């Protein structure tokens, strides 16, 4: 902590004030305690393109992208212009604006199985609503999900421990990723009472390596849901629009009944969406859904522009290429220093772990060293590639990584 006090002087000063008036100082996924306290900045000042600057003036190539939403780069001029233009007309009024209709039409045309769309603000808005729709549609109670998967902050799924009662999860049951036996056991036990299965397209548990679906995993889940009348909900909040514009299920060859988007949908503007099959439409119309700011037009205008650019520039392919070069570079540089780096997850939403690192200290130290040199690597959460990451950014990052590996080696870590 002392060694980094000068570098993060203003961050720590602000945090001291924050901790007097804000529980945790900074709460949720950006809480310093969730990363490596003292080794990362706590507060940001500004951002542009692939970069951001913390309140102490330190510059970073941003591999978290606001934990996902920034897919085209910070402060993308066309998107900001669209949002500002919409805001000049309305910000918060008594009705939706025409852009809501246009956006719903655009989303429905993008995702081929869908017949309708609703809009919210955050991922949790959508996942919690989606399981209600599944229950309404099937008139059943149980929801199956993958152990360790993140679906939001509501009681049925929060990774936190506090403020919960047993009843919150009486009808929520976990199975293990890529473990069809554990899935089938739940199917057998609760067969006539399972309303929905909610899953992310690939498994991205915090602190751990991401896991891709094994062969046959998704087809088995999909077939079981079809056979038993269970609503298959794809939580595409983290990966959506980064892997495939039509929904990440396209990449993995299956089709859900409901799909939840957020993050990359509006390049950082607050917006979330759920799209569904025609058959779910009546149930969707019955489950109450609203929020104080959910009709606000600027984020929807930003989404319209964002989706147009994503489509026009085939951004998912670009993200894949960029992510691949970053991962390959890290693996190669790690090898040069005698470390086995394990890349995981899709290249556009990558993560790394180290072999022989059960305490995670090697990974933590590595990420802290790279961050100190100017590329923000989170040690515990998957990273995000954006379209603003240039080949020069990757080159610069890999040079920083080279130095960080050398530090690890010098410390025999």
């Amino acid at each position, binding site marked *: *902590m002392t060694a980094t006090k000068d570098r993060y002087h203003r961050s720590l000063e602000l945090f001291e004030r924050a*901790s007097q008036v804000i*529980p*945790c100082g900074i*709460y949720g996924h950006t809480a310093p*305690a969730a990363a490596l*306290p003292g080794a990362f900045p706590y507060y940001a000042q500004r951002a542009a393109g692939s970069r951001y600057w913390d309140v102490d003036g330190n510059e970073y190539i941003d591999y978290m992208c606001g934990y996902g939403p920034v897919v085209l780069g910070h402060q993308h001029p066309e998107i900001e212009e669209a949002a500002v233009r919409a805001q000049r007309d309305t910000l918060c009024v008594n009705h939706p604006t025409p852009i809501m209709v246009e956006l719903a039409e655009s989303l429905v045309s993008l995702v081929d199985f869908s017949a309708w769309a609703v809009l919210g603000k955050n991922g949790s808005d959508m996942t919690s609503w989606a399981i209600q729709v599944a229950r309404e549609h099937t008139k059943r109670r149980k929801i199956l999900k993958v152990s360790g998967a993140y679906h939001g902050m509501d009681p049925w799924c929060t990774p936190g421990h506090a403020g919960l009662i*047993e009843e919150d999860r009486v009808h929520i049951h976990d199975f293990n990723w890529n473990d069809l036996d554990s899935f089938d056991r739940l199917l057998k036990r609760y067969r006539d009472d399972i309303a929905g299965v909610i899953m992310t397209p690939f498994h991205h548990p915090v*602190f751990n390596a991401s896991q891709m679906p094994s062969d046959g995993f998704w087809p088995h889940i999909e077939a079981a849901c079809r056979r038993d009348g269970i609503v298959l909900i794809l939580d595409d909040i983290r990966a959506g629009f980064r892997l495939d514009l039509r929904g990440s299920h396209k990449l993995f060859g299956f089709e859900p009944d409901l799909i939840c988007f957020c993050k990359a949908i509006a390049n950082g503007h607050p917006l979330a969406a759920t799209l569904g099959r025609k058959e779910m439409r009546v149930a969707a119309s019955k489950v109450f859904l609203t929020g104080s700011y959910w009709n606000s037009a600027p984020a929807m205008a930003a989404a319209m522009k964002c989706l147009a650019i994503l489509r026009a520039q085939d951004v998912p392919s670009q993200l894949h290429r960029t992510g691949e070069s970053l991962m390959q570079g890290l693996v190669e540089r790690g090898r040069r220093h005698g470390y086995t780096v394990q890349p995981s997850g899709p290249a556009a939403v990558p993560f790394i772990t180290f072999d022989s690192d059960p305490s995670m200290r090697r990974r*933590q130290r590595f990420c802290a060293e790279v961050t100190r040199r100017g590329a923000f690597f989170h040690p515990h959460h998957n990273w995000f590639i954006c379209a603003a990451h240039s080949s020069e950014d990757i080159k610069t990052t890999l040079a920083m990584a080279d130095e960080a590996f050398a530090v690890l080696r010098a410390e025999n870590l």
Partner: protein
Amino acid sequence: MNRVPPNPAVLCQLYLDAVLPCLSELVAEDAFARDLTAGLNASIVFRVAGGPARSVHLRDGAVSSQPGSCSHPSIVLLFLSRAHLNAFFSGRKWALPLLAWGGWRIRVLKGFSTLAERLEAVLEGHEAVISTAAGRRLHARLSLMAAGLGLPSLAAGDVVSREAFRSLPYGMASFTISSEQGATVWFDRQLDTSRAGWSAPPRQAEVCIAFGDAETAFAAMRDQIDTMAATASGQIVVDGLIPLADGLNFIMQRLRVYLQPSKS
């Protein structure tokens, strides 16, 4: 906020394996307790009929303990059941144990009884104890010790803890008060077993949780501090396998349901 009731067998094990061992630390750190034991040389066995036991040795002003019944005890306190032992340790006057052996050692029994009352006052944080910095320090040390030593019992038999353990990585965790000498408890969880100790960990732990000072530890043990903010500002340092630390913190809170049911 889990209302699953305590398992009596776990509570019994906690009294034997987490609370009684704290006597050694109490006597080492507390002048009042030390005075009480001065001149007492005895071995006392706490035994549940057909069940677990623990032996407490008082020798030359120091206390040690070990699981099981020692040979040639001075006193044997026999409990008819785990529930009987639990009632006794939770202060029920009617739940006196059967004096199976050594009932004539009145001085030892009286001295030990007062020592046990002192332990209760410190562990429960009676006002007279925690109104001073020295008392808070003692409470913090002993609470940390009991919490760490209690983890294997919770892992073995408490339904809520077992469920929480399912999602935790294996490995060793150490909890320490940085400003204090010898204030470290460790817990090692492997596939089939778990164990704990009040000493320097036998190897480098996968995660080390260090409270900056006794006051921070005191506040943390009593749930009176924003631990997230304290961690971010360096008052509490978590080094290594964070998910293990986070999970154990949650499970340690379950200890309150057992040992301080009125406060849970």
